[in-house]
């Protein structure tokens, strides 16, 4: 399946051809390329194709119980229609209000930004027709999403599981990355006791997500949690924070940040620690301050790893389920429900088709975000490095 061509002129992003193809050597050496890649590819193919096709099919059916068993009649796109136009619309998209003037202004700013983004690619002819089409498509979908998001956030509106998930992802990743980077940098310095910090900072990641969710449930409990005296002093002991949609969402996000900052931390720490010492020593001889050294020398060097870890977290963060499920059970109402929890709830009520449809909507959203991220950010970062 994998045909190999000798020495392509690929840049630093593509493979850096190192070894001559074929020629002398044992059979093993001639097969080296395939042997490096094929085992991983074979495993992924074996375990992914079947589930992917089955769940796609399930999303086009509706489970029915008949005497002696069940049937899965084909219903076409009904499950998807239900989410976008039908009875699940409020659950999925939310309540969409008319935009207030302030939000109109915000939308105008975003729309202008997207327009500039498209026009700039017209000026740069090297991207070609495919690049232009990609940018137009991205701008259109992103514009639509922002338009709907703003309508859901406007007073009178209410975000559905789609936008709640987006908020979790955007806020979570932004905080986790900068926090993880700062901690990784500080812990990479020569400080007494840094081993203590490095191990301690990894702890949250080691607790199983279900356990973390239950721990935060007791921590955030206004009557039984450790902060109960504080809430009492503030006169909040009798009101449950669960009654405030944004309070409940904040609780979920705090739990998520606590849990996943270690992921960013360890990956960035390892990247900082593998920087060649010669580079930093040279910068120091040139008289760079520590601040300059970090931003001008270290950070650019770890940008490719940063970009990768953000991409991985981007994909993982969309699947958040345990925290909202245990902490708030998706409530109040559906205010903290993420897409995966939405799919899980549908699945629990035996709406298998609807559940698969939500999962596929999530997949479209993540694929769109990840593709956009890779082509507009990741590739550029990797090229620059």
């Amino acid at each position, binding site marked *: 399946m994998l*045909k*190999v*061509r000798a020495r392509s002129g690929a840049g630093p*992003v593509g*493979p850096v051809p*190192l*070894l001559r193809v074929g020629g002398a*050597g044992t059979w093993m050496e001639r097969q*080296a*390329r395939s042997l*490096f890649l094929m*085992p*991983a590819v074979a495993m992924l193919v*074996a*375990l992914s194709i079947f*589930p992917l*096709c*089955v769940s796609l099919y399930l999303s086009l059916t509706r489970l029915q119980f008949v005497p002696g068993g069940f049937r899965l009649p084909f219903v076409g796109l009904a499950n998807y229609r239900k989410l976008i136009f039908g009875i699940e619309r409020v659950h999925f998209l939310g309540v969409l209000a008319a935009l207030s003037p302030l939000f109109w202004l915000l939308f105008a700013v975003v729309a202008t930004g997207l327009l500039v983004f498209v026009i700039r690619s017209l000026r740069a002819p090297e991207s070609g027709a495919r690049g232009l089409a990609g940018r137009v498509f991205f701008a259109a979908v992103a514009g639509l999403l922002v338009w709907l998001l703003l309508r859901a956030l406007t007073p009178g509106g209410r975000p559905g599981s789609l936008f709640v998930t987006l908020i979790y992802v955007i806020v979570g990743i932004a905080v986790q990355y900068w926090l993880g980077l*700062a*901690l990784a940098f500080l812990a*990479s310095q*020569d*400080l007494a006791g840094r*081993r203590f*910090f490095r*191990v*301690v*900072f*990894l*702890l949250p*990641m*080691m*607790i*199983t997500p279900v*356990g*973390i969710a*239950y*721990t935060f449930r*007791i*921590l955030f409990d206004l009557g039984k*949690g*450790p902060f109960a005296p504080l809430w009492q002093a503030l006169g909040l002991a009798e009101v449950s924070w669960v009654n405030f949609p944004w309070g409940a969402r904040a609780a979920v996000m705090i739990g998520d940040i606590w849990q996943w900052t270690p*992921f960013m931390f*360890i*990956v960035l720490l390892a990247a900082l*620690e*593998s*920087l060649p*010492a*010669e580079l930093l*020593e040279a910068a120091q001889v040139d008289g760079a301050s520590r601040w300059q050294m970090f931003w001008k020398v270290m950070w650019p060097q770890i940008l*490719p*790893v940063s970009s*990768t870890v953000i*991409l*991985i977290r981007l994909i993982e963060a969309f699947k958040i389920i345990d925290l909202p499920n245990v902490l708030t059970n998706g409530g109040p109402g559906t205010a903290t429900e993420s897409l995966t929890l939405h799919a899980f709830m549908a699945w629990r009520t035996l709406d298998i088709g609807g*559940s698969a449809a939500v999962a596929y909507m999530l*997949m479209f959203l993540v*694929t769109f975000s990840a593709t956009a991220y890779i082509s507009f950010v990741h*590739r550029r970062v990797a090229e620059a490095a």
Partner: protein
Amino acid sequence: MAQAFAATRPRAARRLRSPYSPSPSGAVLSYAVLGFWAIVVLFPIFWIFVTSFKLPIHVLDGPVYLPFIDFQPSGHAWRYIFVDLRNDTLRPFINTVVVALTSSVLALALGTAAAYGLLRFPYRPRLGAILLLLGAAGLAAVAVAAGVPWVPAVLAAAILFLVLRRWAGQRIGRSFGNDDIAFWMISQRILPPVAVVIPIYVMFQRLHLLDTQLALIITYMTVNLPIVVWLMRDYFRQISIELEESAAIDGASPFRIFLSIVLPLSTPGLVATFLLVLVFSWNEYLLALFLTSANAQTLPLSIAAQNATRGPQWWYMSVLILIMITPVIAMAIALERYIARGLLVGAIKG
């Protein structure tokens, strides 16, 4: 070559203050930030620890903080988990250890190899060959669903693919590059587990592997592969290529270069990635819930099971969480020293 990897730091650089040591005021600020975050991290864990010694009344009647001062600690939860449940704690524990360690090591082995391949060799999978593979796999799936035993079905599909692949590659010649392969790999993590548990369950049922450690090992390894590939590709990229080129000129085979130069030079990344995938398989819940029932159950299931009809049993949960994190912490303490610079300083100059 061997002494090239010795941990020798260039002597001249010693006279300057090391670029890693902060100024005194910077050190104070660093300690303040690190200390703050350490408290944020440790407080919930302290709470879990305290809760594990509480009687239900201590939890449900509002907070008490310090054992012996606020309340009389009780070992009832520990006794329940270790004495009453003995084998029901030990078996999931052993399962978790076996499954997490095996799957992480395998994922690291296959994933690093694939990452290196993707970074250094150009691959050109043909569209025709991919379509043929999909078709063959689909035929095999249909055949198995229709009642054909799966061994002959898979073998027949593999033979079909191998015989026709050259022809298909020529017919539809559009090819993909390494970045496309990498993206395809990471895209395998996009679909949420909720959507794929049923098909995966059916698959392992057909293979008669339900409720075995093997099923979990295979699943976790595959699920973790994309992360290993992506992270290790970037860590490998940080290594300077001159070293590999000079080894290649000296006649070292690709495998040798990979095993004795590339892997040792990326120890920090390797350790970080290993810890990550270990933790992922150690803590995985949803797939374990579906693929196991009694024999191969893992600890996350035991924790979730403590949310019984009487409401969450915080004290038992806390004990189980503590049991679960102890081995991983030990592993992290043991491996943390390898996430360090200068292990191989001087390699380039050698």
